[in-house]
């Protein structure tokens, strides 16, 4: 290595083709994680991607928002003085939209990097696997939260424009925000966990949809059986089997809202506490399993 220069001799080198060294700041892991969060959140809505990848997420956002707009417009027009649908109730009614959005977009966040083997490039940088998972999880939670908050905001702003009861609407809007947050945490966690298992986006989408549908079917059938066999009082427990029913029951229990959705029985106090614990376990468990999934790449 006679005529080669050591790194410390860099300043003496004449760069005749103009290679410039980078002397500026290196912002480290926190910045990289935030950048990954931002780009992943944009990616969840197809922003910065091809037109085709915007279709589904944007369609889901529109489907989520349009009924809220109609409800608001009609209530104001006929001077109802009250929205016909309660805030958390609206999210229960449109659970399938949230589920489809999660199923379609969670694989966008993870399967791409697995399929095109981009993951090792991230981990050859200062980012650790836990930073990667943190950024992706936060992005997916934010995406579902934006989706579910969209109609909540439309309804609340509409109620204000229609001079409806400020106190009642704001209180129930807050219930809606809590419900939206719980949907975001649980749906994003389950969706990402499944998506992380396959590099094939199609498989991921199908598996996530299957999880929501099969668990709803099993839960409903089991409730039917319990009703027929006279175990009606305990039948609220079946809500634990489906993420949507679980959140619906929990929110109704927490805020003592009338049950009009998929689950007809109010959980007991023990049930409500157990439901809350299950939500916490699902959200935290998904995160922990994802970190473990990416530890060995």
């Amino acid at each position: 290595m006679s005529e080669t220069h050591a790194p410390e001799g860099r300043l003496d080198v004449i760069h005749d083709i103009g290679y410039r060294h980078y002397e500026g700041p290196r912002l480290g892991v926190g910045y990289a994680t935030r950048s990954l969060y931002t780009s992943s959140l944009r990616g969840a809505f197809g922003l910065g991607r091809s037109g085709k990848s915007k279709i589904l997420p944007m369609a889901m956002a529109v489907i989520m928002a349009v009924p809220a707009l109609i409800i608001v417009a009609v209530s104001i027009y006929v001077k109802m003085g009250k929205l016909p649908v309660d805030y958390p109730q609206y999210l229960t009614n449109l659970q399938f939209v949230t589920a489809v959005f999660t199923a379609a977009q969670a694989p966008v966040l993870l399967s791409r990097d697995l399929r095109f083997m981009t993951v090792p490039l991230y981990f050859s940088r200062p980012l650790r696997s836990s930073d990667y998972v943190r950024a992706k999880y936060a992005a997916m939670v934010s995406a579902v939260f934006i989706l579910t908050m969209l109609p909540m905001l439309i309804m609340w702003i509409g109620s204000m424009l229609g001079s409806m009861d400020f106190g009642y609407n704001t209180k129930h809007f807050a219930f809606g925000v809590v419900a939206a947050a719980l949907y975001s945490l649980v749906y994003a966690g389950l969706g990402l966990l499944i998506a992380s298992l396959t590099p094939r986006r199609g498989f991921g989408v199908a598996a996530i949809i299957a999880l929501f549908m099969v668990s709803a079917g099993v839960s409903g059938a089991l409730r039917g059986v319990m009703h027929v066999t006279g175990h009606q009082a305990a039948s609220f427990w079946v809500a634990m089997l489906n993420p949507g029913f679980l959140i619906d029951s929990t929110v109704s229990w927490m805020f003592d809202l009338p049950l009009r959705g998929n689950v007809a029985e109010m959980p007991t106090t023990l049930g409500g506490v157990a439901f809350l614990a299950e939500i916490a376990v699902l959200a935290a468990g998904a995160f922990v399993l994802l970190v473990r999934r990416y530890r060995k790449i």
Partner: protein
Amino acid sequence: MAVITTDNLTKRFPRVTALDHLSVEVQPGVVGLVGANGAGKSTLIKILLGLAPATEGTARVLGLDVATEGGAIRERVGYMPEHDCLPPDVSATEFVVHMARMSGLPATAARERTADILRHVGLYEERYRPIGTYSTGMKQRVKLAQALVHDPQLVLLDEPTNGLDPVGRDDMLELIRRVHREFGISVLVTSHLLGELERTCDHVVVIDGGKLLRSSSTADLTAATSLLAVEVTERQDDPAFDVNAALRARLAEAGLTVGADSGHVLLVELNGDEVYDVIRDAVAELGVGLVRLEQRRHHISEVFAAGAHATDGADKAEEVAHV
């Protein structure tokens, strides 16, 4: 200062030892890491990036300990993997900007550095097209660009010429030389093609079965031997005549030591300048043409073959490859 130092570095997997007490020192420059598939190259790179713990021994990259300072190492090192790693639906510019930000560069700097580095690796207008439309050579350049965009002090290139045609291969090797010569970035490049490394590297490290076979400068490895290679044409009028045998006899008669390699080439021991004259005269007297008269050089492959025989490493390497 050494760029990479390993001391007794060992990595054991449940069924196989990938690195076996490897102690080696790599100086700044272009350094080749040679080994058969499964010789432990990729395991070594993972350990050097601080992504896998060593079972035993220590390693330092740019003076930083791989066990405790992995983050600091990965900030200063670039890595180009052997496998595909590019999403097809984004442009080279978008992708490299993203990877620059993942290395901690602010948005504006990431864009400037991306434009610079894509020009340096030879991607111009096509950098705005989706990567899916690129040729293999262009994809390799994007992979190299993402390893260089944050201006590392060292890049680890894993089989960068894989899948390239001969022209693309030459371009990539020239680019690798420039990374060191013009950018002042040290390079560790792995390959199983020895000829490539002879041309590109200042120094070559040969590992096999996780063991160090040899670490020396390319100049040493390819030094001139004291053998002259002599090759002559056949007789036009009498193709059946064994020219080599006749030449051999004449040279032996003149007191020279003559051997032969596998082909039509005689190897004559060079123990003085007069040997050239003797050979010239002998060839002239036989009335044949002289195709080649040159001093033999060593090839890296000789080291590798000799080492593999000595340690029976080939079997071991195969064993690793099966896992």
